[in-house]
């Protein structure tokens, strides 16, 4: 599903390498934690996977696409198959919960009653159905994160990326968000979660944990 092969990444506006010589093979259906201290390169790895950054050296393949050579016009299709959860949510703050959750479905071409029904089903799964018409921007951090997760799950993508999905949340909300990611994993999705919260690791049995230090892998273990 995801293959990093001797991949290195340097940001053009910054000296030094954000990632150095990363080689890893992530199979379909795995649940993977990316851990490591701040600045280790966790977010950079995720951004490379959904095509927001390009590799500087080496190769990266995601579901058959070679991200070093991908054409700009092919990136939207890649992204429609990847659900992304950001630490800062990236919701459309002025839009309602329903609008936010329905957006990826609309982008994927769904319209009308089918769209509403699908969005309602997702909101039910994350316990937000009664807040469907609330403005996303006016909700609590935990609720917003659940909206963000719902949006990422909406189209049922085969790959889910989550960057510090519990960073701002209290333990209850964090556990709730992890439960949603685990549900998706059990439904067959490949899940990558970047975090420096060691408490999360205990929540997923059998998960793989890749530890990054200063842009290099320092550990690859199964919990």
């Amino acid at each position: 599903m995801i293959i990093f092969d001797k991949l290195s990444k340097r940001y053009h506006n910054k000296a030094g390498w954000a990632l150095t010589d990363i080689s890893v093979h992530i199979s379909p259906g795995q649940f993977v934690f990316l851990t490591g201290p701040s600045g280790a390169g966790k977010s950079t790895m995720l951004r490379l996977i959904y095509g927001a950054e390009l590799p500087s050296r080496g190769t990266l393949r995601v579901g058959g696409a070679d991200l070093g050579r991908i054409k700009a016009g092919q990136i939207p299709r890649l992204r429609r198959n990847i659900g992304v959860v950001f630490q800062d949510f990236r919701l459309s703050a002025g839009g309602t919960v329903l609008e936010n959750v329905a957006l990826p479905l609309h982008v994927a071409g769904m319209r009308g009653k089918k769209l509403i029904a699908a969005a309602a089903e997702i909101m039910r799964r994350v316990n937000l159905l009664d807040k469907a018409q609330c403005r996303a921007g006016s909700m609590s951090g935990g609720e917003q994160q659940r909206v963000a997760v719902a949006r990422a799950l909406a189209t049922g993508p085969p790959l889910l990326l989550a960057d510090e999905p519990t960073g701002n949340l209290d333990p209850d909300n964090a556990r709730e968000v992890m439960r949603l990611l685990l549900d998706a994993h059990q439904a067959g999705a490949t899940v990558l979660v970047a975090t420096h919260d060691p408490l999360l690791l205990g929540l997923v049995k059998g998960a793989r944990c890749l530890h990054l230090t200063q842009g290099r892998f320092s550990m690859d273990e199964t919990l």
Partner: protein
Amino acid sequence: MGGNLWLQAVAVSTLSLCLFIMGLIFLASFSLDGFLNRISTGAALRLVLPSGLNAREGASLALALQEWPEVRSSRYLSPQDGLGRLGRRFGSLNLLEGLEENPLPAIIEVELAADVSPDAFTARLAGLGEVAEVVEARPWLQRLEQIRRLIRLITFALSLVMFLALALVVSNTMRLAVYVRREQLIILDMLGAGRFYMREPFILEAILQALLAGLFSSLGLAALIYIIPLLPETPLWLSAALPLGLPWEIPLYLTAINVLAGLAGSWLGVSRILRLPDVA
């Protein structure tokens, strides 16, 4: 969208103004062209026939001339025809009321083909010996074509300038509209929205603005055409030069031009924002 309304209103007004000015240019050119057309019809030469020639001979001479390659058209006018025309031209003045005998000669009106010089034609005509006198009715006729070409050139240049102004207005409003929805666009980009999906609302907006601006500017022009002749201070030549109604081509051209500018502007405007670095 709600806060956008103000922006839209400003955009549509500016576009309407641009189109209105452009329409004035078109209208002036249209009127001048029509005016030139009106005065350039009619004979270039008048062949005065000797009084001995009767109407049948005159008419057959006109027919014979019609066959000449230099001649675009030729027409026999009997003295009575000439009088009738004078009467029409001066209307109710009845200038000719008291005349016992028609003083006008029979003539043939000849319009020459575009590149024939009147002198060469007159020389050939002299060989026939049937014409008493050749009067060059409109010696400045040849200049008319040059004037018309000049007017078209000026119209084209001015429209080009207005088109650039229009493109500037469109691209600026689009840049603003895109900026207002920047967050939304970045989210859409991340969700894998295709290029057309993201551009669609801007394209629709540009087309809607163009249609509204086309409508408003045309209404303005039409109002101008109807109102100007009613004002007491309006000089006669201006009233005479204005067409009776707004020629249907003008709203069409204006709207089409704005739609084109809008399409280009919205396409480029969105491209620009998508080149922003991802801030993930």
